[in-house]
């Protein structure tokens, strides 16, 4: 195996890219089958998809929208897939996401004097801790008492969301103000330290976070950075930077991409991920190999919850800048299909989050231009999940790998052996 013949490099690459190829084919197949539905409905699927695509990627503005939708889904998708891989079926990403958003907002409206480079990481840290806190409760219950985490994480969603709604209705302490929006005097209590409601507004919503806590806009960065020094004089560069869509884009998708890489390393190149995956595929064998299974489950729940919480902070810091009722419903639950379509692999998660983001961003345009209802988007999603799961079951990756390695050893003049275990006698 020391010198690999060059001819098989492509097959090796093919194997490696299967976590991308399966989602791609699943998504294409989903579009194909949904096309039949659109025809039956009486519209032209090609036109519908063209409108969908235009709505998602057609203009810089559309791309900006898609990117905004993608970022939180990457985090919840990573949260769910890390949990799934490690035998901790985290159905609670929704609640963790909401708590993360709440915590990030609270930091962003409380520590208003801090500079951005301190405040942004602090918001993110608070969000991660909040998400991790919510997830570690089921983690501890599973690890130490054998509770089924599917139930506990699912039910804690409601607890978290109710808490979120409650916090939205408790006025946030402001030292400079002592009357509410309708000029009633207000007596601050310690509860107001927890609440996030904007005291100057009648609605249950938080004040906007301070500007320093907002994620930098791409336009702003380009006006000051290295690229500006290089191309600052060029007309096209000025035009590009001045484009409102470019100004709307933030660093959120890039941060999401960074976390995709980080999670790849955690899963496949670090001992934490090795132990977590071992517990995920077979907790008994993992225990027999000396892995502390309960501890691994607890750590997994912390990591998974922290990722979902970070997703909440990305939405607050990068897009909405405040929390409102029903702030971003389903970002957490959507993490489950994102993870499944992405083959529970960080790169696949990014791709399927992009798919989800594009569907969300383009659906309106499709309905406006071709009258195909938005709900078709959910059919496409559901079919993509089915195809992705079916594709994973085929385990083509192993088959191609066997074929390639067998050829390789044959070429090297060794004895090719790829027996399949035969059950029984």
């Amino acid at each position, binding site marked *: 195996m020391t010198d690999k013949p060059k001819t098989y490099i492509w097959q090796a690459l093919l194997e490696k890219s299967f976590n991308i190829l399966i989602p791609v084919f699943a998504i294409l197949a989903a579009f194909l089958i949904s096309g039949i539905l659109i025809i039956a409905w009486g519209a032209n699927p090609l036109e519908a998809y063209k409108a969908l695509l235009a709505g998602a990627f057609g203009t810089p503005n559309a791309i900006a929208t898609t990117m905004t939708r993608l970022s939180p889904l990457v985090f919840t998708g990573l949260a769910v897939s890390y949990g799934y891989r490690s035998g901790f079926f985290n159905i609670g990403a929704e609640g963790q996401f909401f708590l993360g958003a709440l915590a990030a907002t609270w930091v962003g409206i409380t520590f208003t004097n801090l500079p951005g480079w301190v405040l942004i990481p602090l918001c993110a840290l608070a969000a991660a801790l909040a998400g991790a806190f919510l997830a570690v409760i089921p983690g501890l219950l599973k690890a130490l008492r054998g509770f089924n985490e599917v139930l506990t994480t699912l039910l804690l969603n409601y607890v978290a969301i109710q808490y979120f709604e409650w916090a939205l209705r408790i006025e946030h302490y402001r030292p400079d103000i002592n009357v509410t929006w309708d000029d009633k005097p207000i007596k601050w209590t310690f509860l107001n330290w927890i609440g996030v409601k904007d005291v100057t507004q009648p609605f249950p919503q938080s004040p906007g976070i301070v500007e320093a806590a907002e994620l930098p806009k791409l336009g702003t960065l380009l006006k000051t950075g290295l690229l500006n020094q290089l191309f600052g004089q060029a007309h096209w560069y000025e035009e590009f930077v001045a484009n409102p869509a470019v100004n709307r884009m933030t660093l959120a998708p890039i941060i999401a991409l960074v976390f995709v890489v980080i999670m790849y390393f955690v899963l496949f190149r670090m001992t934490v991920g090795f132990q977590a995956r071992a517990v995920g595929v077979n907790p008994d064998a993992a225990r027999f190999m000396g892995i502390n299974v309960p501890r691994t489950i607890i750590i997994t729940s912390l990591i998974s919850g922290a990722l979902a919480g970070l997703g909440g902070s990305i939405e607050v810091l990068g897009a909405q800048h405040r929390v409102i009722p029903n702030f971003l419903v389903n970002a957490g639950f959507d993490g489950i299909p994102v993870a499944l379509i992405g083959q529970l692999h960080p790169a696949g998660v990014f791709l399927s989050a992009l798919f989800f983001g594009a569907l969300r961003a383009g659906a309106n345009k499709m309905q406006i231009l071709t009258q195909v209802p938005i709900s078709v988007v959910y059919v496409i999603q559901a079919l993509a999940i089915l195809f992705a799961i079916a594709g994973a079951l085929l385990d083509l990756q192993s088959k191609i790998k066997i074929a390639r390695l067998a050829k390789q050893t044959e070429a090297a003049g060794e004895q090719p052996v790829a027996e*399949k275990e*035969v059950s029984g006698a």
Partner: protein
Amino acid sequence: MTELLRLEKICKTFPGVIANDNVDLSIERGEIRALLGENGAGKTTLMNCVYGVYRPNSGKIFWKGKEVHIHRARDAIALGIGMVHQHFMLVPPLTVAENVILGLPSPREPLLELSKVEAQIRESGEKYRLLVDPKARIWQLPVGIQQRVEILKALYRKAELLILDEPTAVLTPGEVEELFVILRKLAEDGLAIIFISHKLEEVRAICEKVTVLRGGRVVDTVNACDTSARELAKMMVGREVFLKFDKPKIEPGEVVLSVKNLSARDNRDLPAVRGVSFEVRRHEILGIAGVDGNGQTELAEVIAGLREATGGTVSILGKDTTKKTPREIIAMNVAYIPPDRQHTGLLLDFSITENLVGKAFWKPDFSRSGFLSKKKLDLFADRAIREFDVRTPGAGLKAKLLSGGNQQKVVLARELSGNPDLVIASQPTRGLDIGATEYVHKQMLEARARGAAILFVSTELEEILSLSDRIAVMYEGQIMGIVPAQDADIHEIGEMMAGVRRLGEAVGSGEKMG
């Protein structure tokens, strides 16, 4: 005229393996037929074709002279074929009668009426000496009785042909004899019986016609009584087998493992190990003999730190390890080969490399501050694969794609490549063919020569006898006696395995038998 089942040119292939190659077989009513062959000879595959679990690639099956197509087990049952699998298909929380009727309509649909079923079970129980309490719950019954339930299940479904897959694997010698009595009575009543076995002695004991399979083909059908064990072995393996081999005499060294008055419970929280004491020294193999399920597995798990001791102590190289975690014990250079490589020995969905470092990935050899060194892992895996002769096209392959023997080589490579001071081998040859078994034995002897102390648990008496320096026999959680291998008497050991006699008072366990 009385032919019940005929197989003609049955072929069954799996990717890369020919499991059955043009097999012909004919079974008559009232006949007991043994199917003898090594693991992997295709015995179970052939019977699974008859029972509808697999469909043969080609060939014909005739039932009472008519060609039949059996697509699923239900078809086979409808024809009158019953099969008792090696791993019983019973629902533990249900009663015997409930298990017997499972999947069939009740005598009084839609109401569940068990009294009739229970009566019928008692009736056939008396007729064939298959005595079982129909109201007992399966999990409360010993395996020997569970096997009877499986047979009753087939009889209740009006089986005319009964297939038993390795029925004696879980039985004591005494229970085996009882089973044979039952089988004879069933045969007298006109039932045909096929039983699968890889044990020469029991095939000779039941003394009927035996069909020998090797490499998926029928070698011959002979009368077991007229054929010597040696001849049968030769037919089975295709060459002369030397069950005894020369093992260099080495003086045992210091005490590595010392177990004192150890007790532990099994998964059902019942006492499994009861006051066991022994020592194992360097350069020494202590064989633990006994019928499966007499506490050997639990004993090995307690020593490896995987099961809590309820009493007594374990010390390794002078240090008390009774309360240590599995990883702490691994760190003391202790190897443990679990009995079930598919479930607890390997992570089947992990690559070979990942499995090879499964117990050592956290050591500084392979990782630094939480980051795995891919280069070091690959280097180690390549070397281990070469050293232990794992036949695989590559180290990146998932462990589940290897054959059983190669899977066990991966386990051995993981456990033995670090030159352990203590090796706990719990049934390391279970389910392996003769070649792979020989390989495991060789590795054990090499570890012994290098100075390891070895605790070798096996239910196969022959390998215990040929491999061990001393032999301890376990029965119901206690050690019935420890004898040096050179003056071991097989009958004496057999009796101890059945709990009949314990050797002297000076040896082994403390408390009296419960």
